[in-house]
Every structure is written in C-alpha cells, then in structure tokens.
C-alpha cells in the first residue's frame, strides 16, 4: 500500500546526508562579547557595525524569551551549545568550477543549481555562514542590479547598504532579531536600480551542515523607484540529533512604485528551530508580497510583515504551512497601515497531520486619521487526524471611520464523501487524501512560480505519506 502512495518519484532522504566538516574559522560554542568581537575581526567589520553587533548582543541578553505568548518549546534551545560563526574559509566564488568539490556534491544531491540554472538569473548559495558560490547572469549585471552576499554588499556598496540596514527591523524588534544583529553572517544584498524590472527570479539556497550550529543570515533587498524584483529562497538541512537554530533577518525596501516579491519554501529538518523576522517597507504606490511556505523544522515562528508607509502602498502575505508529527508551524502575518489608501491582503492555509500543530498569528493595525485603508484576512485550516491541532490568534486594531477591515477563518477536515468518491474511482485512500489536500492549497500554489509549485506539490505528497490508514 505504501509504495503505491508515492506516485511521484522523490527520495525522502534527500536532505539527510552530510559531508565531513572542514571549517577553518570557528568561533567556538556559546555567545559572549568575545564571540561578537571574533566575528567582527574575521569579517573585518567597520567600527559602526561592530558597535551595532554589540548593541544586538546586549539587547538579546536583556530580552526574555517570549514564552508568555509563544511556545514553551523555545526553552529547549540551549544557547550555550550553539556555535554562532563558522566559515569554510573560502571567499565567495564567481564561477561554478571554483566551488570545492564536496560542497558542489551537496548541492548536486539537492538538485540545484545544475538543472534549474536555466530558470534562474543568478544563484547565491549559502553553505553554513558564507556564500561559497554566487553568480549573476550577465544580463542582470548589465542592468545595474547588485546581487551579492551581505558582507560583500556592506564592503562594496556602503552608501546604499548602511542607509537601509537595520531600519526596517530594528535591533530590539524581538529577541531573535537582536541575536541576528549580534552574530549575523551571510545572506544576500540586492539593489535594483530605478525602473529596472528583473525578469527572472533571483534565487538563493541555504543549508545548515554543522551540528549545533545556528545560521544567522541577513538579507537586505532594495528596489528603487519603479523597479521590480522577485527573490526566492528554499531551505533544506541535513538531520542532526541535537536542535539547530536558524534565525534570519530579512529586510525589504520598496521605494516609490516598486514591487518586491519574496518567496520562501522552508523545509528544514525536523529538529531545527526556525525563528525568523521578515519585514518589508512599502513606499508610495509600492508593493511588497511575501509568499511563505513552511513544511519543515521543529518549531517555526515567522510572521512576515509589511509597513505601508506611502499612499496607495500594498502589502500581501500568502502563507502555506504544513505541520506533521513533532512539528509546530507558528506562522502568520503583520500588516501595519501607516498611510491613506493602503491595502493589505493575508491569505493563510494550514494543514495539520498526525500530532502536528499549525498556528496562525496575525496583526493588523490601522491607526488614527487614515482614510480608505483596507485589509482582508482569510485563514483556513485543515485537520487530517484526530490528534492534529490548529490555532488562530489574530489581533486587529482599527481607529477612525474611513477604513474597512475584515477577518475570516475556518477550520475543517477533508470530507469523507470526497474521499469515498475518489476511492470509488480507483484511488487509494492515501492518494485521495493527498489529492484533497493539494486541492485545498491549490489556489495559493498556483500563484507561485512554476518550478516552486511543482516542488511544493511534491513536498506535500511526501508529507502526506502514511498519514492515513
């Protein structure tokens, strides 16, 4: 029966292998001022950044874990056992041939980038802390688009980098953004010049490969006036026995009339704590759209947000979460309206399988004296088994008379009639269930770029295996 269910040929253990570590730079385990100085020394940070990191550390140590509202599972993270900085000691590579062989094999096992290279304008793959491979197709480079690692961005384009760095997500936004501010390394820096519309999505892959090692990448994307860019990130990580921490900060800035679309497919191993802060700033007429897909990890806490700062700015979050045994997907969205005629849209779909728990947490804020702001929120949850759990915790604040906000949520299960109908036509129960679940998320998945929607459908089928019967 089981073999019949895997209609798609996918190797379940694809993310499970790893190669011996050969880290040249290692800050050791635990976090102190020394760790921060070590990172700053290795990366040859300018003074202002060293101070920024130290402020981050201070804030991180001062802030309590947010367990008064968030999962108590956070207490399982042993911050003293985590190694905060590792680097293979190699500089970012320009060409594929220069990438070390064992790292290259890792990416090949994942099916990137060889097969997908054709689709992609540029590839920025992060292996542990440092970008080991980066490449932008000639055409993109000629348009003046900057697509480099965050360290390189900071060194080569300080005037653009510093203007926006840490401005969308301040150090003290939350405990984990403070942690990231203290120890970040890696991540992408993208600048799209005025009027440039990047045709192909830019893509980066992240992996964690050292046991007990947290990955703290920092991404900053600036789309100048009237430009458009799509960024995609996908994550897989090898499985380890002790918890691993991933705590990224992603800041997006869409200047007047610009559009940024940020797509994530998160498939960390089921022992990873994935605590990520993502926020976009949309100026006049600009649009920031988050497409966020969470399949893996032990606990994900991620609420992509948009601050609509300019008139007629738009914000959108499309979110899919799949929680299987031992997983808690605590995801959602934040929409801060800060100008007239701003509109936002949140669509969230979650599926809980086995003992999995999916949580939607949302914030919609429409302050005083704004006119014609609109928000629409829809959250739908699907429960597969009797032991599955789902929660919805939205918080909506509206002031004044000129605005309209609506929120709707529903919880349901796959109808037995549907399953029966499909079984009558020769599908196994598992296949029928898988088909139903794919139908449930289909209208969202269709909005994804093609290769991602295919990958996503396969991932869902994979997760559904063995959940019924």
């Amino acid at each position, binding site marked *: 029966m089981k073999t019949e269910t895997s209609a798609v040929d996918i190797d379940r253990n694809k993310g499970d292998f790893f190669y011996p570590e050969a880290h040249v730079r290692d800050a050791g385990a635990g976090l102190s001022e020394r760790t921060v100085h070590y990172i700053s020394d290795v990366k040859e940070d300018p003074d202002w950044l060293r101070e920024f990191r130290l402020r981050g550390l201070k804030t991180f140590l001062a802030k309590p874990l947010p367990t008064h509202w968030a999962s108590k599972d956070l207490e399982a993270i042993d911050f003293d056992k985590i190694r905060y900085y590792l680097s293979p000691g190699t500089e970012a590579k320009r060409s594929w041939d220069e990438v070390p062989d064992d790292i290259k094999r890792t990416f090949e096992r994942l099916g990137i980038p060889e097969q997908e290279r054709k689709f992609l304008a540029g590839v920025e793959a992060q292996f542990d802390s440092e970008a080991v491979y980066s490449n932008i197709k000639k055409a993109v480079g000629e348009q003046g688009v900057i697509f480099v690692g965050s360290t390189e961005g900071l060194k080569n384009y300080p005037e653009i980098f510093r203007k926006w760095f840490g401005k969308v997500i301040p150090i003290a936004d939350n405990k984990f953004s403070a942690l990231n501010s203290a120890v970040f390394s890696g991540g992408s820096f993208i600048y799209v010049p005025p009027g440039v519309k990047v045709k192909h999505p830019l893509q980066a892959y992240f992996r964690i490969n050292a046991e007990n090692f947290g990955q703290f990448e920092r991404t900053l994307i600036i789309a100048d006036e009237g430009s458009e860019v799509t960024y995609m990130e996908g994550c897989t990580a090898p499985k380890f026995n002790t918890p691993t921490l991933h705590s990224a900060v992603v800041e997006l800035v869409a200047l007047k009339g610009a559009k940024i679309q940020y797509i994530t497919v998160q498939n960390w191993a089921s022992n990873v704590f994935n605590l990520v802060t993502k926020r976009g700033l949309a100026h006049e007429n600009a649009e920031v759209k988050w497409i966020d897909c969470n399949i893996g990890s032990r606990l994900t806490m991620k609420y992509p947000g948009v601050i609509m700062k300019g008139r007629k700015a738009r914000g959108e979050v499309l979110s899919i979460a799949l929680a299987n045994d031992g997983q808690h997907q605590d995801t959602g969205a934040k929409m801060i309206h800060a100008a007239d005629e701003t509109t936002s849209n949140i669509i969230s779909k979650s599926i809980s399988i086995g003992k999995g728990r999916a949580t939607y947490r949302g914030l919609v804020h429409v302050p005083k004296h704004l006119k014609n702001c609109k928000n629409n929120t829809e959250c739908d949850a699907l429960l597969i*088994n009797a032991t599955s759990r789902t929660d919805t915790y939205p918080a*909506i*604040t509206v002031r004044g008379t000129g605005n309209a906000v609506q929120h709707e949520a529903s919880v349901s299960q796959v109808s037995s009639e549907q399953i029966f109908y499909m079984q009558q036509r020769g599908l196994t129960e598992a296949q029928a269930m898988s088909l139903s679940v794919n139908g449930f998320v289909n209208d969202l998945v269709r909005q994804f770029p093609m290769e991602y929607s295919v990958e996503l459908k396969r991932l869902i089928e994979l997760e559904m295996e063995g959940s019924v019967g």
Partner: protein
Amino acid sequence: MTKNETATIENQAAPILSGPGESREFPDWFRDQQRAAWKQFESLPTPTRKDQAWRFTNVNFLDLSLFNYGGKLTEQERATILEQSRGLEEVAGRMIFAGDELIERDVISDQLKKRGVIFQSLERAMVEHADLFRTYFMSQPARLGSAKFAALHQALVSSGTFLYVPRGVEIELPIEIFHWLNGKNASAFPHLLLVTDELAKVTVIEHFRSVNEHVPGFACGVNDLVSGPGAKVTYVCAQNWADKVIALQMNSTTVDHDASAMSLNLHLGSRYSRFESLSRLIGEGGRSDLLAVAVAKHDQEFDARTLQDHVSPHTASDLLYKNALDDRARTIFGGLIRVEPHAHFTDAYQKVRNLLLSDDAEANSMPGLEILADNVRCTHGATSGQINEDELFYLRTRGIPVPVAQRLIVTGFLDEVVQRLDHPAISERLRQLIEEKFANNRD
C-alpha cells in the same frame, strides 16, 4: 444587634484593600474560603499589558486603592432606589441590592415555591442549601485573566442571589435583579448563583445601576450559571453603571447534555468595564449562544473576553458581539473557541463586528481558535467598518436629517443581536436603554 451595627459602620468606612471584615455572620467554612481567597488575591500579580489576557487593556484602570465598602443607606436613598428600580412590567421574582445589601425581595408565586424553586439571598442559601451552594459556588476557576479579581470577589462577597430551578420546572416570566452602587468610591461584589436541574427553564435579567451619576465606584461580580441536562437558561445583563465606575464581571456558564444557554450582555455605562464570559459545553447536544451589544462613547473602554470551551463531542456554540464606537471610545474583544481533544463534531461560530462612528474611536479584535480535535466546523469572523454612505444617502433622499439617519443605521446594526432573544419584553427594554444612551449623551 447594636453591636453588629456599629461593626458594620466601621466596615463601611474601610477601604476594600484593607481586607474582608470579620463582622458578617457566615458559616465558618465560608469564612475560611474567604480568608484563603484574600490571600490568593494578595499573592497574585496585578495584570500588565504584557499578559496576553490583558493585551490592549488600559491596565491603569485597575488601581483599587480608592474604593471603599460604601456608606450605609439613608431612608431617603432606600426609597429613591426602590422607586428607580423599574424594569419589566411582569416578573416572576425580583431582588434589589444596594451596595451588597439586599433591600427588597419580591417572592415568586406560591405555586413555583411549592414546586421547589428556591429564590433567596446567597447568605441564606449557604446555610439552608449548603450542599448545592458548595457544589456550584465559584466551582470554575477564572480562566480568562481575572483570577486575581475573582479571588477578590470571593473574599469580599457578602450577598447575592441564589436561584435553584428543580427538574422539569419552567418559569415563563423573567426573574429580575437590580444592583445599585451608592456613594462616592463605593464598591459592590454582585453574585448570582443559578442552578437548573434537568429540563428546567428560566430567564434572568440583571440591571447594574448607580444612584449618583458622576461619582467613581467599583464593581466586581461573579456569576455561576449552570444549565442542567436538557435545561434552558437565558441570562441578560443590562450594564448601565455611572460614567466613572470601574467594573469587572466574570461569568461562567456550564452547559450539560442537550441543554442550552443564551446570554446577552448590554454594555452602556461605566468608564472601564471588563466582561469575561466562559461557556463550557460538557455534554452532547449542548448549545451555547453568547451575545453582546456595546455602545461606547466619550472615553469609555469596554473589554470583552470570551471562551467557548467545547469539552464534549456534538456541541454547538454561536457568538455574536457588536460594538458601536463614538468619540474616543475603545473596545477590546478577545475571544477564543477551544475544542478540547476528543470533542469531535463541534460546531462553533464566533463573530465580532465593530462600527466606528468617529476618527478617534479604536476597536481591537482578537478572535481566536484552538482546535485539538477533528471533524469540527469552526469559523470566526471580525469586521471593522463605518456607516455605509449609500445607506446614509438613501435615508437622506427620503428627507431624514443626517443625525437621525445615522442613529437609525446604528440602532439597526445593533438590533440584529437584540432580536436573537426570544423574550419580546426584554428586547423592548434593552432597545429603550440603547435609545436613552443615544439621546442623553450628546453633551
């Protein structure tokens, strides 16, 4: 008697934070409970805005150092209160409390009495019906954030209503209860303990009022409402405290199999009013309807927290809360539908709608779901908006001036909730109260 009276007068001057007085004549076991509750009140921390259960609340309202036990009624005041306690024309029974003193009790008909209906003061019930009392009195912990204030209530409660409706007895006419706050900085600790046995039916309406329109006061009430198997309980609260009163109310409803409970809370008065409604569905076929209407003006803050707790499979709940907000008023709705493990075939609904009438009004909505079972149907919705311009235009083209048209639209918006009650006389009374609030408060 004289000794007692002197003690009472001493008590009256005392601030409530000095603790429970020792002069009241309660059974020892109850006294012990009160002392334990007071200890609990003192040890529990005062809520802060960081507590999820108090998110968005202006917790500065919770300073209780000002409030005292309230003065003794003069004959004149007593007469005024009795005269002003006008509610429904026809009732099955009536109690009137001033402060925490029962000043009048209209007994229900002899026939109901003969069939075993008990309608008496709390302090009598704890002696005469100790078993019932001890089984149900504050048997449910306050789970919605006010454990500290429930403890305060338990420590300081000195009177209240006990109503027991035996098996199969249906009381058609409503029971009416009045609670009056009298005097500056006076406090009250209203309590209603309502227990219905199998297939019983009863409706209770409580009025919360102040004698003096412009002095501060404090009310901290707890209601235990028990709907036995197949029973039908309707509870209506008409909260119309004076505009400087701080009020906390914690209601806990238990719905047994095939029973139904309906509550409607009307919020008009007070400076800050927090109302916690916990409805537990513990038997198959149980149904709970939670309704509320709030008209918030000036600097008023209405803070509603609800929990629809589905413990048993095959239960249904339906919540509809509507707020109309004007001036600088704030409302908070924090609601949760919780479907416990194994509570399959739950059908739960939750809807909050805010109508904002001014640019400074603020509506906060937190409609939540926690689902730990499957085969459930749970939906919730929250909307915030303003008067539809087309509707306003339509009324204006028919010669209706703007203020009148606005009022028509707002009352129409709120009336959807009031209509859900199947007691025309009570619905009519609530409509009058809403009208009065719109008519009075234009200063």
